[in-house]
């Protein structure tokens, strides 16, 4: 799996269009909202967390469509399978690669948005932490959807359709965790629920993605 991860990472860094697009969308979307609200700090402060979360989800959705499609179309998946690489290791490699190249940049960009929205350090920290804890759930579900619809027409639309409904609990738990963070710290119920949801998504969606890839090849 190390070889696979190194390869995936190398390819993503050589073709930064995908993750740079996600990061650019994230920053621009939130900047435009700030401009549209005419820099009303009171309003921005109140809606910052759900806005950042929405921007993060939409940004990540942009990266999912191409994750498996090229490898299925050009026969790489067949070679992987014959080489004895398990679907799990293929999906796990993608998970780690996207986490490093897409989620971490969003988390790192959050303080910049926080400064733009004039959020307190505590507020910025809580939002960044919620992304770090909750975004893996988005990623796991996105991977499962991408594996399921790879090679289909309108795959991007189908991924959005399959993934978005499951984002409701993520945003609710994240908001609860961010609200409680100044009083209760990282161990608050909201963050714990978010962490549980991420773990559950990982445990279900990663094997499901591997199974979907196998079915897609048959």
């Amino acid at each position: 799996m190390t070889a696979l991860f190194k390869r995936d990472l190398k390819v993503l860094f050589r073709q930064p269009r995908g993750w740079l697009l996600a990061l650019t969308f994230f920053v621009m979307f939130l900047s435009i909202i700030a401009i549209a609200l005419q820099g009303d700090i009171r309003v921005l402060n109140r809606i910052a967390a759900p806005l950042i979360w929405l921007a993060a989800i939409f940004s990540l959705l942009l990266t999912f469509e191409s994750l498996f499609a090229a490898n299925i179309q050009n026969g790489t998946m067949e070679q992987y399978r014959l080489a004895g690489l398990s679907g799990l290791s293929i999906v796990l490699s993608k998970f780690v690669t996207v986490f490093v190249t897409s989620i971490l940049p969003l988390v790192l960009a959050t303080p910049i948005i926080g400064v733009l929205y004039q959020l307190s350090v505590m507020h910025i920290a809580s939002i960044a932490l919620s992304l770090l804890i909750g975004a893996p759930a988005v990623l796991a579900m996105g991977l499962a959807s991408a594996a399921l619809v790879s090679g289909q027409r309108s795959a991007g639309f189908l991924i959005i359709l399959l993934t978005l409904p499951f984002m409701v609990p993520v945003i609710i738990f994240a908001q609860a965790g961010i609200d409680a963070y100044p009083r209760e710290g990282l161990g608050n119920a909201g963050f714990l629920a978010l962490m549980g949801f991420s773990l559950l998504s990982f445990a279900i969606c990663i094997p499901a993605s591997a199974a979907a890839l196998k079915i897609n090849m048959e």
Partner: protein
Amino acid sequence: MLASDALPPTRLTFDKVAFSRGARTLFSELSFVLEPGQIFWIMGDNGIGKTSILKLAMGFLKPDSGEITCQTNGRSIPVEQCIGYIGHADAFEPLLTVRETLAFWAEIYDADPDLNTLIEGFGLSEQINLRTSSLSAGQKRRLALARLSLSNRPIWIMDEPKAAMDQTGQELIASILERHLQRGGSALVASHYDASAIGKHSRKLVLETAR
């Protein structure tokens, strides 16, 4: 350029295999045994089902009935341990160079070849640091053959191996096939070309499927 040690004697068996695509039956009761040291040529027109037979052998398609097995010393083994494949699709990441591509597959196959020698053997020395997207169709085919040789699998499955190959490339295929057979390997080859043009010194069987 290729490992020279003997391969485990492995036999591929199709036993009364039936397969249909939609309402169209491509074949039924298809039986054959691919023995070590043997090439089984599957010849026929386009769309007759050559690639389907290869995909059935690799487990990418499931037969309607019948059984397909890989056996070493009478023991069934999974296809991942016995089959190497060169297909229509290149299966290369366009952003990686020739060297990076083979280094990656060597790691996946747990092989430790001298990459320079391997690349030279397949006539790709000048392209060693070129990305695979810059290679011609024939050069990609050579690279795919180099990956196949890295796999060190006893059964090679080759779909139109001659496609896009020039005369030197065709001679290269013939020589690596011959070497593979000498090591006790075997090959299942789909082609609509004359089988005698490749591997003419090897043992051959010809299967013609009927519409």
